[in-house]
Each structure stands twice: as C-alpha cells, then as structure tokens.
C-alpha cells in the first residue's frame, strides 16, 4: 500500500468490518512501549476481551486494570494521553495500524472484527516520546506562537461588540476554527521532520496546522493587524516554501480542515507580502 493509499484508509472497509464484528471475541493489542526518553523501545502484546462499543481507549483502560502480557508476564499499565473521549480535544492522537488518528474515536469493531485480530498501537512519529504512547507536542503549540495566532484586542474592558461579519465569512472561518491542534497533519507530512532540539524549532518547517491557523487569524478584521508579522514568519526559514504539496495533511485531518486551501491562500499572501517588502526596500 502506498503512503497516500494508507492514509485514505477506507470508510467502506470499516463499515464492512463493523457488520461482521463477532461478539464476545478477544483482540490482540500489540503496543510499542518505551520507558522514557533515551530508553529503548519494545513491543508488548495483550489479549483484550472486547465489550460492546469498545474503542482503543476502553481497551487501554482494560489493560491498565489487568496489566499482564499475552505471555502471562506482569507489566505496567500503558501510558497515553487523553481527555475528552469525544474527538474534540486532540489529546489521544497515536498511530493505529499504521495510520495516525485519535484513539478515542477508533472503534475496535471497525479495525479488528474477528477473534484474534491484531491492533497495533505506536506513538506519533514526529514528536519525542515521553513514555509509551505519550509524546511531547510542545513544538506544535510553539508554532502557534510563531505565527501570533491570536486577535490583538486592546483589553478586556467593555468596548462594545466585535466587527460585524457576513454569514458566509463566518462559515469559512468556522471551518478553520475547528482545528484541535492534534498534530495528525504534521505526523503525516513528509516535510515535517522530528526535531528534539528546541532551539531549531523556529527555523524548522512549521506544518499545515499553524499555516491554517495563520490564515484563520488573517481573515479576522482585527486579527488582520498582525498579518505582516505572520507573513514574515511564514516567508522565512521553515515557512510556507518548505511545503512540498504532498497533501498528506488534508487526508488525515480528522476535522476536515481545508488545509490545501489554507496552504494555497497563505502561499498567495506570501507572494504579495514579498512584493510589498521589495517595494518598501526591506528585502
């Protein structure tokens, strides 16, 4: 399976799996574990009885309460990050059967319908592992600061309503606003390389997530005021020019954020920004 095919992992197949899911079965969870930074990775397998409606998180909970491997060896509960359990906080992202996605919305019936089927869980590949399936995504949030992803309001005093906005423009912004900073788009991006050295973050490829957020704020009447700063950041090292247009990002985004559109829009803004800079004698 090519990378692109793997990413468009198919809805039809999941539906078919659901239909043939066997009640009362057990599924093997093969989990890539690591005790901490600098420690070697190892694989452990667990045999987990599947309750009705089980997903990856409920299975990990079961393992936490019964931490014994398939060989009968007692081990520690697996460590992972999660919170909302309804695919809206972005915390529980991991690589499941080779594809990056949220684990809370990953139904076992859709991936492992038969007795003895295997589910493979690995940490995200582009961020340093903290322990087991928990990775450090500080860089992702740092990238939001890089593009000044906020509206520069004067302050919290009462100064009346914000700018008026048309229905259609709101709909366009809303589509961008649902991004939950999960990082799937970064994990799948061939240009986004793992970087543990914090001092290099600001010059490494920023990724589709922050590019799209920059567009979100550029589209707000007040947010616009920082557009030049954002475009400076996105025109420099690790900015929009590093994007190779592979479009893996948009295929894995769980929230359907129009990333290709955002990359296109920011690309056009960058061109205009460069011309302006040129005429102002800044570059």
């Amino acid at each position: 399976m090519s990378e692109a095919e793997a990413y468009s992992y198919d809805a039809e197949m999941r539906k078919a799996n659901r239909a043939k899911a066997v009640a009362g079965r057990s599924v093997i969870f093969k989990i890539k574990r690591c005790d901490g930074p600098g420690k070697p990775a190892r694989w452990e397998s667990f045999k987990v009885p599947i309750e009705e409606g089980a997903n990856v998180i409920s299975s990990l909970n079961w393992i936490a309460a019964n931490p014994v491997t398939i060989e009968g060896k007692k081990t520690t509960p697996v460590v992972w990050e999660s919170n909302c359990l309804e695919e809206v906080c972005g915390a529980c992202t991991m690589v499941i059967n080779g594809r990056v996605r949220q684990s809370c919305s990953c139904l076992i019936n859709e991936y492992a319908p038969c007795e003895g089927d295997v589910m493979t869980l690995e940490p995200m590949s582009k961020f340093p592992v903290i322990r087991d399936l928990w990775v450090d995504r500080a860089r992702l949030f740092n990238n939001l600061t890089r593009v000044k992803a906020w509206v520069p309001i004067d302050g919290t005093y009462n100064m009346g309503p914000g700018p008026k906005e048309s229905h259609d423009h709101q709909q366009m912004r809303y589509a961008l606003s649902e991004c939950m900073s999960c990082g799937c788009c970064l994990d799948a991006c061939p240009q986004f390389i793992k970087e543990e050295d914090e001092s290099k973050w600001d010059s490494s490829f920023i990724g589709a997530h922050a590019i799209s957020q920059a567009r979100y704020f550029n589209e707000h009447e007040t947010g616009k005021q920082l557009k030049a700063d954002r475009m400076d950041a996105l025109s420099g090292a690790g900015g929009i020019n590093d994007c190779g247009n592979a479009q893996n990002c948009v295929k894995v985004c769980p929230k359907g954020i129009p990333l290709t559109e955002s990359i296109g829009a920011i690309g056009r803004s960058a061109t205009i920004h460069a011309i302006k800079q040129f005429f102002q004698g800044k570059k």
Partner: protein
Amino acid sequence: MADEKRVIVVGGGLAGLAATIRIAEAGMPVDLFSMVPVKRSHSVCAQGGINACNDVARQQGYSEYQHFDETLIGGDFLNDQHPVLEMTNWAPKIIDLLDRMGVPFNRSNEGFRDLRLFGGSLFKRTHFSGATTGQQLLYALDEQTRRFAAEGKVNKKEFWEFLWPIVEGEGENARCVGIVAQDMRTMQIQSFRADAVVMATGGCGLVFGKSTNSIICTGGAASRCYQAGAWYGNAEMIQVHPTAIPGADKCRLMSESARGEGGRVWVPAKKGDTRKPKDIPENERYYILEERYPKYGNLVPRDIATREIFDVCVNEGMGINGSNQVYLDLTHMDPDYLTEKLGGILDIYEKFVGDDPRFTPMRIFPAVHYSMGGLWTTYTPGNYQPESPVSSFKPGDPIPIGNEPGHGLDIGAHNNAMTNITGLYAFGEVNFAYHGATRLGANALLSCIFDGVCNGISVVNFVREGDQQPVSELDQALFDAATKQEQDKHDKLLDSTSTGTGDQQLNPYQIAFELGEEMNAASTVVKTGAGLEKCLIKLEELKERYAKVELGDGAMWTNQSLSFTRAVGDMIIIGEAIAKAGLLREESRGSHYRTDFPERDDDRFWKTSVAKFNKETGKSDIEFVDVKAGLVKLRPRDYGKTESNASSASKEPIGAS
C-alpha cells in the same frame, strides 16, 4: 524579581483562562497550572451555547433581569442571588468581549450574531458557534493566554498536577499562600508561593464512574482543598442528563433535540426480549414516556424523562437485554429530513457506536453531567436594593437593573468568589454559587467566564491592597513542610507496588469502579434515605480498602497510575460529602429527588448545605445555612407544567446540552 507578588491559577478551562487573562492584564504575574495543555481542557466539550440577553430579545420584552430570574427558578432558589444578578448583568458584555476576541459566533443573514432557543426560556438568548461553542470559546481564551505567555506575563505549567493548597493559620485565620504541585513527566514534587490562589479545576463527574465529563474531571483538586479546610457547598446537587450514549469508556451527550424532532423512547414490552429492535412489532413495544405521560409524551421536561427512564431500567429491570439502556428511535422518520435537522449529533452517534441512527434505533441512558455543588464561596453584595419584591416583574417592563440602578456584587471586593480560606478563590464549575439545585443549559459557560473576568479583579485587589504579609516574606520552612507531606504520601503509594499482595480488592481501578457503581445507584436520579445510608457504608468499606491500595506501576517517570490512584482516595471523600448531604436533605428540590420526601420543604431546607471536613473522623460534617437571597422572593417552581414551557423545551436546537 523574587519578591514580586504573584498569583497562581490552577486549571486552564474557561474559568481558569478568563481569570488568567484578567489578572495578567492588570499587570500581576500569573503561574497557570494544568494537568493537560490548557487547549485540551474539558470546556472544549461544550456544544450548545452561552446565554445572554441581547438587543433582539430585549425588544421582545426580555431583559438581564429575566435571565437572572430564570436562573433562580431553574436552580429552585438554591442559588446565591447576588452573584447571579451580577453575572446575568455582565452576560451581554461578555459576549461582546468574546466576539472581539474573534470567536466565530454564527451569523444571521445580515451579519449579526445569531441566536437559538434553549430550555428554560421563551426568548432566544443563546449565542452559539456551530455545535462546538465550548471549543470556540476555550480557543479564544487560549489564544489570548498564549499572547500573554509570549509577552512573559503568564508562566504556563502544563502537565503539572495540583496536590495541595499551602495554608498557614487555623480556622478564621487560615490563609492560602501557595500550592504543592507535581510535574506529571519527571514526577518532581515542588512548592510554589503565591499571594493568592484561584482554583478553576472544574467538575467531579468521575466520582460517578462514567459521565459526560472528560476523564480528568475527578474532583480531586477540589477534594484536596476540602480536606485542607475549604468548605464544600450543595455537594448533593448533581445534574443528570436524560439522553446520553452509554459507551465502554464514557457517556457521550445526545442532545434533547432528537426528541424534539420526533424521537420516541421505548423498550421491549416483554422483559428479556432479545430480538433486534426492528424485529419487535409495534404492539410489543413499551413507549415509556408516551404511556406514562399521554399529554406530553416524549417531550416531558428533562428531569422527568431522566427519572422515568431510570425507573424502567433500574427498578423494573426492563432495559434492553436487561441492561441500563432504552431505545431512542428516529427510524420512523425520513432519513433526509433527519440529516438536515440533526446531522451533527447523528454523526457523533454513528462515529462512536458504529450504527446509523437513521436506520437503527439509538440506545441511550441518563448520565451524570454537571455538578452544581462545589467549593463554598462568599462575596460582598453590591448596592442594588429591590424596592419592592420584584418577583412580579413582567417581561416588557422597564429593566429594573443595569449598571446605573445598581450592582449585585460590590465589584472588586476582596472576598468575591473567595472560599472560607483567605486568599483561596474558586472559579467556574468548582464554585458552588450560581446554579442552585439545577443548572439551566448554556449558563455554565457564562458563569465560568464571568468568574474569571469579574472576580479576577477581586483577586488583583486582594493581592495589591490587602494588609496581609507578602508571601515572599514567609518562612521557607512552611513550604518545605508542605512539599514533604506530599512527597511522603507519594512515596507511600509508590512503595505499595513492591509490597503488594496482588489482591484485586486493593486494585485502584477496581475501587474506582465500585465507587462509581455505588454513587450512580444511590446518589443520582432517584435517592432514598435507605439507599444513601447503604451507600455511606459502602464508601466506608472502600475507604478502608483504599488505605491499603496497591499501585500497579512503580516507575519514577510519568507514572499515570500513581496520579489516578491518588485521585481515587480524594474521590471517595467527595463522594461521601455528596451522599451525606443528600441523606440529610430530606426534601426534593431541583436535581435532588428523594422518593421518601417528594416535596420541596422550604421551612427546613431552603438552605445551602455546607460540608466541612472533619480531620479527626476523616468524614464530613454537614450544616444547613440560609441561602443568600433577599433579591427575589421564593415561589413555587412549576416549570414545565405549562404549554409554553413545554413547547420551548421541544424546540431546543441541535447540540443543546
């Protein structure tokens, strides 16, 4: 600068972030602690919207005052009245502020903010951003916080767990001067000084096992403050939502609008009928609400729906296949119509359950949703004086209040939203003051942000103007002792890994599971004296087992089991306060329904329950104190019994919660 005054905010949901922004803006440095990156806090789950009076509703006769009044009726008059008055008064300004921050509120054709109807009101007063309002509000505040962090005014400490408030002095003189916290990755335990501490740690749904809450909503942080001497108000007031999707890991909310659009609630008429729902003919189905309430049918108010579904499953054992589930059936309707009206919530169901509700009946059950109770807080009333009892105020009358005629709170008074411990504040869901015995939909987000932006001023004033000694001058020994206390507790838990017997009875997950089962059965929808007494005995047993709990992971690095196990002990203690206050409140009011005392009893119980942790017995002492009322007169709560209210509930839109 080491001797600069600082504030600690614990929690980065809506309440914590609003507080952080307000305090940082006033020039006071803030250390912001959160167990998760603040952008992933539980507030992100809220769907339906946020209430505020607005220009359109105002011209139709609505007012801030009526919003205030509705909130009190909703809360069955158990709310503290002055803060609610101030909150509803601020609501429109809070919406404006969020609007300026860039929240993509839905827009009308002309470009104004759109509004939707919500339960408890006949006026459109709910502002929303698609079906993800909480997410959009949280992000807007997260962005402003990021801005302050980039400017060096806020120091974010994410993946840090609050362990204990550092309190000097006893009783009336108790004062909070900092916190002990633990880095969840390195497991390092450390004390932090602060001239004031704001708790904004959210609700405690996990005490009930599976709820609609996020998995860190254990109430652990509130419980720790409680054990350190902070009082806990109206613990027994827990809201249960009638329609949630039971899941293997949590219960996800299913909006009331599914019933509004024609959804029918039923179970097989024959107990133990294992046929697929489609194979059960019409005349062999028991349409619970339609048969029990022929007039309103599936559109009875929420609390009734919750109680009846519960009754059929728990008392009569008629749930689907003997489980605690009933069908919510939309399959008799046109699939295209359903997609148009309910698409968003039907997709959630399909994503998590795997069945398409257009063709297979949904399986739902009530689930714990929100805690009205929380840390007890006080305030200084403002200058608003009702000249005459204003409960006769009618829509369309001139607005009796506003900034000019008077304030509910003395804004900026040092003690607003302060607990009984000086310098320790409680904001958001963890503050008990606003919602009384039931919270109205879309009022929680408002109370969170109001606490932050209004009562944040009180925090700043207290630190700047108060005559207390600056915390930087206090003796280090106090802080070292606090660190040591927590380190010892931590080490004891860690030791249990190696000394363990392997007894399943001492497994923390097992203890938490039994706690949830017991609390759910005894202390949610339908309570009885006998049931609560039994529950308290069970909690005693769990407490004894917990004292010998055995940890499954001895790692000194990123030990999540340890964090969870520690919270389990705190959950049992909060559970006990909830059950005991429920036992002593011998009446029915709002969400608190006692079959042995089915009526509201104002003479004995128009009172706030205040739980105080008794360090000798390790249990709660409960007192009932007068509700801080005085603005609106008590009256019966006949909510839901009139045509108009029922029809407004039925129109509740998609994503309502």
